[in-house]
């Protein structure tokens, strides 16, 4: 019961902190959709035509007209050193060709794969030249290969976008809000000298830690709910921000709820880690500084497996906290969520949370925690 008294008081205290409301509700619900919106302002494959400069070695009217007819807004320029010109950002593509009479025998394309617009231009021009100048009649004995993607281009784009940004944003926002909240509840007690009265009350130190850890977890899970809710709503009305398909069209409400459950255990872990840091720190400022590496680590762990396949994982990676949850969230997005990976993630993150809970109990029991010099 006393645990609930602490939980209720801490939540009331946090609700009255305007900064916490902004951090836990407004930022995840608004900042993430805004960020995605600005990301979509980058040129997409369809926008390649605008202000693209192509180096062409000599006058080639037929070729230039062909490109102009297919892609709008192309500007042809001359350069003796196409590689350097493109590398310096003064052109997006270079074309060299071998011509015999009116017939084109071969093309060499220069582009900068590190620049999105250059790569997109290359893809478009490459495809155009191949389709136009390749033999129009396929050989009779040629093998026919047909490629059919299993998802629409829009859904692929949305899946890629969400599987990259969602786990990272979920971890970073939940870690930062949970830990700033738990630091206020632990190091803040010392800074305000309220810890003495609290410890002289007839309540066990374990109940104090448990109540505060749970209260901070409520703040963290609120941030998770705000982020998922904000993303669901904004992508529903503006699907462009998630690549053309909304989060709700990619994942069912039940799948999103599963992500929430996975995040609940990550939040519990962040809360327990933050509590240990807060009890070690002398002030809120010291505690906040000490939590920064943890937030960076959470971000690194959540993005660590992004390059991997969302369906396959080496079981050893599932023992890494946060990284395992990040993998599970990605696999849920792809519709493959393995129940064993889900359970392992919950167990591992809970175990680490339990370990930090014990560390917090030890720290609060030490008398030097109160008078640390």
């Amino acid at each position, binding site marked *: 019961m*006393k645990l609930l*008294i*602490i939980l209720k*008081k801490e939540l*009331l*205290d946090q609700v*009255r*902190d305007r900064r916490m409301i902004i951090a836990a509700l407004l930022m995840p619900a608004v900042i993430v959709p805004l960020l995605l919106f600005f990301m979509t302002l980058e040129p997409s494959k369809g926008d390649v035509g605008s202000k693209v400069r192509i180096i062409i070695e000599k006058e080639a009217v037929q070729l230039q007209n062909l490109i102009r007819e297919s892609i709008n807004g192309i500007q042809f320029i001359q350069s003796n050193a196409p590689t350097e010109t493109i590398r310096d950002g003064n052109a997006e593509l270079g074309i060299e060709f071998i011509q015999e009479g009116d017939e084109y025998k071969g093309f060499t394309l220069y582009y900068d794969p590190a620049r999105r617009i250059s790569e997109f231009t290359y893809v478009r021009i490459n495809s155009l030249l191949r389709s136009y100048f390749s033999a129009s009649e396929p050989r009779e004995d040629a093998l026919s290969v047909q490629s059919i993607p299993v998802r629409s281009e829009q859904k692929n784009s949305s899946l890629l976008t969400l599987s990259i940004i969602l786990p990272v944003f979920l971890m970073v926002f939940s870690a930062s809000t949970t830990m700033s909240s738990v630091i206020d509840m632990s190091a803040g007690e010392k800074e*305000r*000298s*309220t*810890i*003495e*009265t*609290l*410890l*002289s*009350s*007839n*309540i066990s130190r374990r109940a104090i830690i448990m109540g505060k850890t749970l209260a901070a977890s409520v703040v963290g899970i609120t941030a998770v709910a705000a982020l998922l809710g904000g993303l669901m709503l904004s992508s529903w009305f503006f699907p462009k921000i998630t690549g053309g398909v909304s989060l709700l069209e990619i994942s069912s409400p039940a799948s999103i709820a599963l992500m929430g459950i996975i995040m609940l255990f990550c939040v519990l872990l962040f809360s327990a880690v933050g509590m240990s840091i807060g009890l070690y720190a002398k002030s809120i400022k010291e505690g906040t500084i000490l939590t920064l590496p943890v937030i960076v680590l959470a971000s690194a762990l959540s993005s660590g497996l992004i390059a991997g396949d969302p369906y396959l994982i080496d079981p050893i990676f599932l023992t890494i906290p946060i990284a395992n949850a990040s993998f599970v969230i990605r696999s849920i997005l792809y519709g493959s969520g393995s129940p064993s990976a889900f359970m392992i993630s919950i167990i591992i993150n809970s175990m680490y949370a339990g370990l930090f809970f014990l560390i917090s109990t030890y720290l609060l029991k030490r*008398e*030097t925690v*109160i*008078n640390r*010099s």
Partner: protein
Amino acid sequence: MLELCGVCKSFPAKKEMVLADISFSVKKGEVVALVGENGAGKSTLVRILSQILRPDAGSISLDTVSFHEDPGYMKNRTGTLFSGESSLYDRLSARENIIYHARLNGIPKAKYEPDLKLLIEELSLSHYIDDRVSTFSRGMKQRTAIARTLITDPEFIILDEPSSGLDIIAKDSVKAIISRLKKSGKTVLFSSHSLDEILSCADRVIILHAGQIVCDSPVELFQSGRGKDITSYLRD
């Protein structure tokens, strides 16, 4: 009755003992003033009595129940006001701070509500009882902290510099509260730097100097002028 026998305390950061062989007893209903210069060990003793710190040696008991054997017994019967900042939650109102402490100590609503009314009246808290503590002056905070200490209706009350930061009127109300507690048979141990407060409220004076008790005498000794001046005990 509170009994301390051979209580010692040191901290790793300090070479000397903060408290050395502290032994005294406080009878039920007695009001004892704890006097000493800054750093004499008063606040450390208060923290030990509140079970925040553990003594390195010695024993403490309340009504013959030992600290070690039953820590909850003393916690349930002790109310402590710590020195320094008033240690209140800024984002909560005065009322919420007081009720939170009462509930943490297991006091039912039926018990703390009438007591709170009485304390609001006694400490003149009515004008700001529902305001957030962040808007309070030092004196308002101290009165709220005193009310919080007394809301559990403890038998043994420890007040570490209760009138610190208070104006003359508020200091008078602290004296009135100590007198009221004495009349109602409560045991009070308070530390103070105010001679007036000590002489008008205490039955007995314990003087701490460099972590040791240098005087334990009835207050009359200082009132009548027969004994030494209190400050003379604090000089080396």
